[in-house]
């Protein structure tokens, strides 16, 4: 029954003229500035003939830390011409930890090694003539690069570790490699925010086991204890999986300095109100700092347009 109504009203809403809908919205929310209205209108009017990937980032050391132990890589490539355009992007957020300032070594090594190794693997596909398809499955390549970074951190920065959330966008699919408690989200224009990754943290584990409730989890004293980290332990098992790129929405990756400090509403609002991705990232970083900035803050937003 509910579905039926949803369908009914969902369809109805689509029929409303853009201008009318705008009027409706402003009646229920705060009045929009001219700038915002222009942004919304221009978004509605513009058509992108070519499918392309766009991305922006934001980062801040925060208000309470001296060091930035977060590292970030954002690579966006579009190759187009007579052959079909295949969007290619690589986005990595790593949040390092561990004594002797090795945390920043670990996170920096993770983004560079994973990024560098993947680019090497994709070089012949992207730039060779004629282009060469890679036979190795994407998930295996990701796993291999993560393992390389893991071994490097164990060797060069023993005792330290880092979270890694890496998203490889190829065509319409995203392949994610994930360890630790940085997160990837799919953010949709209707306000829905889906967490794509699962934290490898003690608190999440307890929540999954049903030993603590969501509220208890929010106030759990050891929220920052990880049960898996790159650089830690003999056998590292990253979560690696592939899913369709959130077509009408955004792919977002961030460290816990962001998701642990601002809530989903703040994220929604930042993305909805900002005129572009860069502003949206900065607004989120500012919000996390305004809320105390207890930890390093890193965010990446990527969008598929066209």
């Amino acid at each position: 029954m509910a579905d039926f109504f949803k369908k009914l009203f969902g369809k109805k809403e689509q029929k409303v003229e853009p201008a009318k809908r705008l009027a409706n919205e402003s009646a229920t929310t705060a009045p929009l500035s001219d700038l915002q209205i222009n942004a919304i209108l221009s978004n509605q009017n513009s058509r992108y003939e070519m499918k392309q990937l766009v991305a922006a980032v934001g980062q801040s050391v925060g208000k309470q830390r001296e060091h930035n132990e977060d590292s970030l890589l954002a690579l966006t490539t579009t190759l187009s011409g007579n052959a079909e355009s295949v969007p290619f992007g690589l986005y990595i957020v790593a949040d390092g930890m561990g004594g002797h300032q090795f945390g920043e070594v670990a996170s920096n090594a993770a983004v560079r090694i994973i990024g560098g190794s993947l680019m090497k693997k994709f070089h012949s596909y992207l730039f060779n003539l004629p282009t060469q398809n890679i036979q190795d499955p994407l998930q295996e390549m990701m796993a291999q690069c993560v393992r390389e970074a893991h071994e490097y951190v164990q060797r060069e920065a023993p005792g330290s570790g880092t979270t890694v959330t890496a998203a490889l966008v190829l065509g319409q699919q995203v392949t994610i490699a994930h360890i630790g408690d940085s997160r990837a989200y799919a953010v949709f224009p209707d306000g829905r925010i889906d967490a794509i990754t699962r934290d490898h943290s003690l608190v999440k584990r307890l929540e999954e086991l049903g030993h603590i409730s969501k509220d208890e989890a929010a106030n759990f004293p050891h929220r920052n204890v990880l049960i898996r980290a790159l650089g830690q332990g003999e056998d590292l098992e990253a979560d690696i999986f592939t899913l369709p790129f959130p077509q009408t929405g955004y792919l977002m990756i961030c460290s816990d300095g962001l998701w642990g400090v601002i809530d989903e509403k703040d994220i929604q609002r930042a993305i909805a109100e900002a005129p572009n991705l860069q502003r949206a990232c900065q607004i989120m970083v500012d919000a996390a700092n305004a809320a105390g900035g207890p930890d390093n803050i890193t965010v990446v937003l990527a969008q598929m347009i066209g």
Partner: protein
Amino acid sequence: METRNIASSDSNSESNSTPRQQIQAGSTLANRYNIQDVIGVGGMGSVYRARDLHFPNVVKLVAVKEMINTAPDPLVRQTIVQNFEREANMLATLNHPAIPRIYDYFTYDDRSYLVLEFVHGKDLETIINDSAGFLPEDQVISWAVQLCDVLAYLHAHKPDPIIFRDMKPSNVMINHNGDVVLVDFGIAKTFQSGQKGTMIGTEGYSPPEQYRGEATPLADVYALGATLHHALTRRDPRLEPPFSFAERPARRINSALSMEVEAVISTALQYNPTERFPSALAMKDALMNVARKTGALSKITSALPAAASGASIKPLWTFKCEDEIRGAPTINQGVLYIGCYDNNLYALDAAEGKFQWKYAADGGIVSRPLVFDGNIAFGSSDKRLHLISQRTGKLVWTYYTEGAVYSSPALSEGHLFFGSDDGDLHAVNVSSGRPIWKHATGAPVHSSPLVLNNLIYFGNEAGMVSAVDFRGAMKWRFQAKRAVTSSPIARGQAIYLASLDSHLYALDASNGWAIWKFRLGKGSLASPCIADDFIFVGAADGFLYCVDIRTAKEIWRFRAENQISGSPSAYKDSLYFGSVDGSMYCLEYRTGRLRWKFETQGAIIGSPVVFDDILYFGSTDHLVYALFA
């Protein structure tokens, strides 16, 4: 504070440009303790072996534990030192054979030292790691009993019980007499200032409530349970998800263990403290009982779960054809359609198996009939695609290819698509039976095409997977190492298929990129099937594999007695498939547990179909079967 073995600590301390300098061997502390060696390194400082120079005529060895006060605030530092001294005083009053004696303590600048009895021996973690197999249960029980004793002693301390807090194999020394000594009291904990930011949890032995800051005698009981679990299974809990002991009972890992000892361990490891042993003494009693029992009674062999046999399963009906059935049935409007090697396509009443009509081709039929708009389309080894009337079984048209047609047709936009041994994918107009185009692949196409998003996906016997558009133009190709007889299936933006090259592949439907591949024991001719987030496929090694569709991780595998050539079918929470061993299997699909199997008199090559709680399939014993699913 965690003590690590010496070998690893040495290499660490060299590569670490740690600001915390270790004391050099040969130097003397407090004019009394001559440092000989580092025997452990922890987060708070090092542990040294030293000689007590107050006994010049004998070599009296002591352990000197160093704790470095890193708190920047002077008031905090002072409090830490006071706590340290208070605890050292308290520990000095303890008198138990399994607790090292405390001789002395002192503080210089930012370093505090505790001088303890030196224990000759090895810690339990080293013993576990150095042993070739599992430690004998009797041996571990005898140590466990001693550990219960010493915990009971600590817990009975007045005025307040002492909680050890850090029971784990590396904190249990086995001395030269083979007795346990508890080392590394939680005293060092006072030196751990509150850490900020992301931390790495390495615990694994501590109970859940300890993370909430509660330390009770029952926390030590849990940690002892975890220690025993580690000692008896060689599975280090620090490498496992926290509190996952219940998911890996000790006997599943070490089947030589007694059920009794497993019961003791699992009671100690209860998540809820009230469900554990009420005290270390109660745990000791339980262990003593185990020792008595296992010593006296011969091992109890576990009764194997009675495998559900198919003997009790009676088919609803069977129908006998004149030759082997190697294809899959289709059910439509209460009628079952199935092709046979006797060249006939049969129409049977699905409820009772009564014959309705048959249509004779000029060759065997293995393709799955496709029913649509009152017609049935199927291929035959007579090189033709046949279209016949669903009601009467009379021919509408046939279409000739240059090779046998084993591929089942797919319908889209008024066209039928199917492969042939002539190496082509054929597109035929449904109403006229006229060819629209052929797409040449260079090798026979047994794989049945999948139509999705205006593309047609199929494999060929040379291992090539092709995606062609509705005009027959190639969109992409993917090359497997051996034949792809398997028919692709889709989920989301990916297609899945198996190959004789022993892999199950996930390919990006829009560009043919391999997303993952999963290694099978042998090649597979069979098409996979999907339910929930699982993908199932059988292979020539006789295994039916269940794989997580997102991550390509194996969930379970089930072994049939011979190869599996047909595609499985998922229905409700069951998975059905046949094997060349002649049986139809029903498994619970989330766990791979066998529900039942049903034996036929011939190999089962084709796939089963479930409709309205009834399972239909054919066998090479010439029979079509209908069973209650």
